[in-house]
């Protein structure tokens, strides 16, 4: 009986031991440094290259446009900020990653009525939040940019 139990317990312990050795060997480095995860994964997540550059990057070359965009407009005794709140990349979505010179692939924009309508078309959920335009009625044959400078829509 002793022999039997000894062998069984021994094989059980050998199994557990081998298992734990394998476990130790296969656990990735940096696992468990901060919590139950691979700490190096934090760096993997940081390493991704951004696409959007941020407004400062745009302003460093296009100061004129940036200033124009920042101007406010007085209308009926109220001051309106208009598009000065908008970041450049809200409309000019990047065509190339932020590490690369954007001149290689400039974020040029084909202005369309649809684009402006994305924010300005009439929608009950936009009431009192933004100037709404009835796109099916307001100068339907014209492109918005023919009258409104997108960088400051009330000037010109």
């Amino acid at each position, binding site marked *: *009986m002793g*022999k*039997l*139990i000894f*062998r*069984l317990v021994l*094989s*059980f312990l050998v*199994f557990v031991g081998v*298992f734990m050795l*394998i*476990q130790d060997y*296969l*656990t*990735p480095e940096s*696992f468990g440094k901060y919590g*139950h995860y691979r700490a190096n994964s934090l760096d993997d997540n940081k390493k991704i290259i951004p696409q959007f550059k941020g407004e400062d990057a745009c302003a460093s070359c296009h100061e004129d446009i940036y200033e124009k965009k920042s101007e406010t407009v007085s209308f009926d005794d109220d001051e309106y900020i208009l598009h000065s709140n908008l970041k450049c990349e809200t409309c000019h979505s990047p065509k190339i990653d932020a590490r690369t010179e954007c001149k290689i692939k400039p974020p040029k924009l084909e202005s369309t009525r649809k684009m402006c309508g994305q924010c300005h078309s009439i929608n009950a959920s936009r009431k009192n939040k933004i100037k709404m335009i009835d796109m099916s009625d307001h100068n339907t044959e014209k492109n918005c940019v023919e009258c409104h400078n997108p960088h400051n829509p009330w000037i010109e």
Partner: protein
Amino acid sequence: MKEHYQHLYEILSQVDGYIYPNEIEMNWGLMIVLYPYITGLVAGAFILASLERVFNVKVLRPTYHLALLTALSFLFVATLPLVSHLTQPLHAYRILITPNPTSAMAIFGFVYLWYLMVVLLLEIWFDYRRDFVLWSKDSKGFKKFFYKTITLGINDTDEKSVKIDDKLGYIITLIGIPSAFLLHGYVGFIFGSIKANPWWSTVLMPVIFLFSAMVSGIALVMVIYMIVNWVRRQAIDMVCLDTIAKYLFYILIIAFALESLDQIHRFYEAEESFDIIKILVNGKLNLTLLGFQITIGTIIPLAVLGLFQVYQPSEKLRKIAYFIVGLFVLFGIFFMRWNVVMGGQMFSKSFSGFTTYKINIFGMEGTLMATAWLVLPILILMFLLWLMPPWKKSTEYLH
């Protein structure tokens, strides 16, 4: 990449109401239905075997070894559907390497290993050890090699060693019962612990899974016992079969009562999620829940088995009835798992709409794969019955 979303366009057009955009794809499919189903069969078969051994229900003797071998064959396959549903199946070993102690799924790996290594293999080993020694003397080839190896060099065949085997086997069975409860209760917990999903998140889930597991395991052993005896042209022990059927009847009542309790509780409390669940049960789950699971899988078996408790028709009729009832129960429990897994994903967590499940034939989650995982344990069982036939055992224990 296209093959991963091609079919989603069709489902997108069938979305009913509002669902979160990421919810169009149902992430758990047929494989996750099979996983609790097969694990349940294991736990159920084992508990039937324990009835004979621990609770001393002697009439169940003819099915004891069969139940153990059935449990083992299905246990070998139990985790394979899980692995094949992973998007990174080759990395499945990480569950054992860095198991997250707070994850129900991670700890399942250890519960599974414990059950396989310490409970089932050991119990069967103690039960067969003396026969292995005896068989190793008058067989040759692979069988001889296998018997010799599996004895681990312990060649005692005397009365004393048999007594020890019996005693240790008994202890293992004692450990085995809570382990079997743990194994399948745990599967229920994997679903029951998801608080984000009101269809799953109920404390009763582990208990419901446990009793439905017993129901399916008992039905499986009953069916397999009949088939094996037909194939071997042996007479079926009707006292044994009637007793199994009686247990099936009782446990089916408990399982049904628990499930009803869960639904009544849901219905009466009528929490935030109730409206969407009501539509789910009356709509997308109508056939599989009310039709398959409840009518075919529960009501009809209950009626037949209940009738047999008060009125016993001829042996032949009973045999046929038991066979059909067994298959009905197995079918019903499969759809019980289906309704849990699929039902929980069909409605959006926004409680405002539904997506649909499109079943595939091919692929890792397809019906072919599912059939393979269901046939494989049967093949393993056939192999085990060839390798260690219970009817050729000469060691009879006194317990």
